[in-house]
């Protein structure tokens, strides 16, 4: 394990209880990810990829073990502190985009700033800027139902970036997209990683895309890390 890892997990485990049955989603995962890396996570369905991302994103709490981000122990944070961590440190994108259908693209992007008590004018200004970055400025007043899958995911990326996070967690962002659009999305993520030094953890089944864009790939099986392949080093 890297001593100076930006994201560190130690003996991280997550067990779900369904009645009397206990299912281990993650078993004693120990990882260290350096700042500014684009890390791919892959594995079969039910291997614990989403659980890992949810734990890293502070959406869920581990059953045992610890998570440190930039030296801060995330796994011990209170509910409120965890919410602030999600607000300020991480941005998340999902396979099903998870946009609010009642809002326009612009409002969706500005949504996280609402909870950061940013003034409405500033919220909309920043959201517009990010929509421009992902090439959707012209679609800002459209609702998610009026956008294609690729456009929705780009809106979701803009939303994830609006609070200027240090980490971007992507849970199968290309899962619902055709291969061409999937490639465009991964290109955007790669660009963000390269230009802004954003640390990205991306779950994907698309091995070709991972090999092409990820700095390293972690393979999970039955909740445990079975393989870690470093594809390229960064200065």
């Amino acid at each position, binding site marked *: 394990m890297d001593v100076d890892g930006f994201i560190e997990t130690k003996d991280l485990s997550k067990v779900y209880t369904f009645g009397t049955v206990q299912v281990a989603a993650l078993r004693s995962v120990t990882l260290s990810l350096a700042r500014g890396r684009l890390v791919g996570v892959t594995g079969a369905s039910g291997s614990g990829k989403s659980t890992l991302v949810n734990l890293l*994103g502070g*959406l869920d709490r581990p059953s045992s073990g610890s998570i440190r981000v930039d030296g801060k122990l995330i796994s011990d944070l209170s509910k409120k502190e965890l*919410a*602030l961590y999600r*607000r300020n440190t991480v941005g998340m994108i999902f396979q099903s985009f*998870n946009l*609010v259908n009642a809002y326009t693209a612009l409002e969706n992007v500005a*949504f996280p700033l609402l*909870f950061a*008590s940013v003034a409405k004018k500033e919220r909309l200004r920043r959201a517009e800027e990010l929509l421009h970055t992902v090439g959707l400025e012209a679609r800002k007043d459209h609702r998610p139902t009026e956008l294609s899958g690729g456009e929705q995911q780009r809106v979701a990326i803009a939303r994830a970036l609006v609070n200027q996070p240090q980490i971007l967690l992507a849970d199968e962002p290309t899962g619902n997209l055709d291969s061409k659009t999937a490639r465009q999305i991964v290109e955007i993520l790669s660009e963000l990683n390269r230009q802004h030094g954003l640390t990205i953890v991306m779950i994907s089944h698309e091995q070709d895309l991972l090999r092409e864009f990820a700095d390293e790939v972690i393979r999970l099986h039955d909740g445990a890390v079975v393989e870690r392949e470093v594809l390229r080093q960064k200065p």
Partner: protein
Amino acid sequence: MRISDYTRQAGGNLWKKKLRTFLTTSGVVIGVGALVCMLAFGQGIQRNITDQFEKLDLFSYINVFAGGGGDRPGDSSDPDDHGPVHSRRGRDVRDVNHPGPQLNAEALKRIGEIKGVEAVFPEMRFPAQIRLGGKEMFTLVQVLPASACRAGLVKLRSGAFYDSDEPNELIVSDSLLHRLAVRDPEAAPGMKIEVATLTLDFSLTNLLRMALSAGGQALPFARENYAFTVVGVATRMGSMGPLPLRSDVLIPPGPAAQMRKLSLTSVWDLFAPSGGGANYASVSVRVQALQDVEPVKKEIESLGFGTFALMDQLREMRIGFLIMDMFLIAVGMIGITVASLGIVNTMVMSILERYREIGIMKAVGATDGDVQRIFLFESGAIGLLGGLFGLGLGWAVGMIINEVINVLMARQGAPRMEYFGFPWWLCLGAIAFSILVSLVAGVYPTRRAARVDPVVALRHD
């Protein structure tokens, strides 16, 4: 999150579900409207009763009775005095076995020195024939010291009060002048009025006249005439006046003491020396402010006199009003309770529909408190709208009922009255109560929203 954002969010979310918001708010409107209407009716009734009492200036007076010895004959008596003989303490103020202090000039002076007393005057009235120009009118003449006149008791329409207790001057009511066919009451000051009293006459000539008269028509009475000058014309006297001023003519004590007269309100009057004695059966005390009633009463009672104040009755009336209000609130609360269940249902539905959105909120950094407050603002907004429109509905229904009652009462010849009262506290209270009920109704659903697990919610379809 900013308050403005919560408000905007609440407004936006309620607007998106217009029909549901309308139906839920309608329930609150009807509930609040019913409550407001009932309370306003209660307030209207209370106001009408207390206004009537205040109009008659009944609350600022204390009647004082002699503490012992009771019905001393010969002192001037009040023809209207059917006054209670028990003080508020329940003590028999006419207990002949325990004669108390007498109500005399010294007692009046001591009562007048009590803090909070504006005026104190004995209740002395006698019947007299008033003659002005060619017209005569029978009325009650009241003896009122100059100081009591000036203490705000008498409302002058023209002229002035008599300067002292000595001159042969009087104040007359405008209504009596009207009955005496004086067209211009403003010009009455300066006019000469003759006051004729009745006295017992057992002189030899009168007895002879009685003996020689046919048919037993003659009685041992004689008429005494006294000349007075009108100095002031007062309004709201006589039957329209405050309780202690139920007379149309006021004269100072000086000439009253010199007048031979019979009160004829008690058989003892027939044997009393004319001109009044040193003791009074009862005395009226006017206090400076309503809050002085109780301390002044206590002070007077500590001097050994019995007291009676209508203010005490008002207290009992208020308990009655409170019970009536409680009953009306209980009936009105039925509507509010049903409406609050509607709010719970709406909020639960809204949370179920927006389950995934709650997950998104949490994923992008909303705290449990943020989520709870977003939904509480929605719930409160329903309450605010319901309160505002409910107040309007209650007011409108109240006005319609008021008009209907007045039309029906006008046929009976009754004067117009406002049967509904909408004091500011009722209006603001109704809105505040509506918001409060809505917030309470929203507590359970919003707590449920705050506890939503974001991982589960984000997977929710």
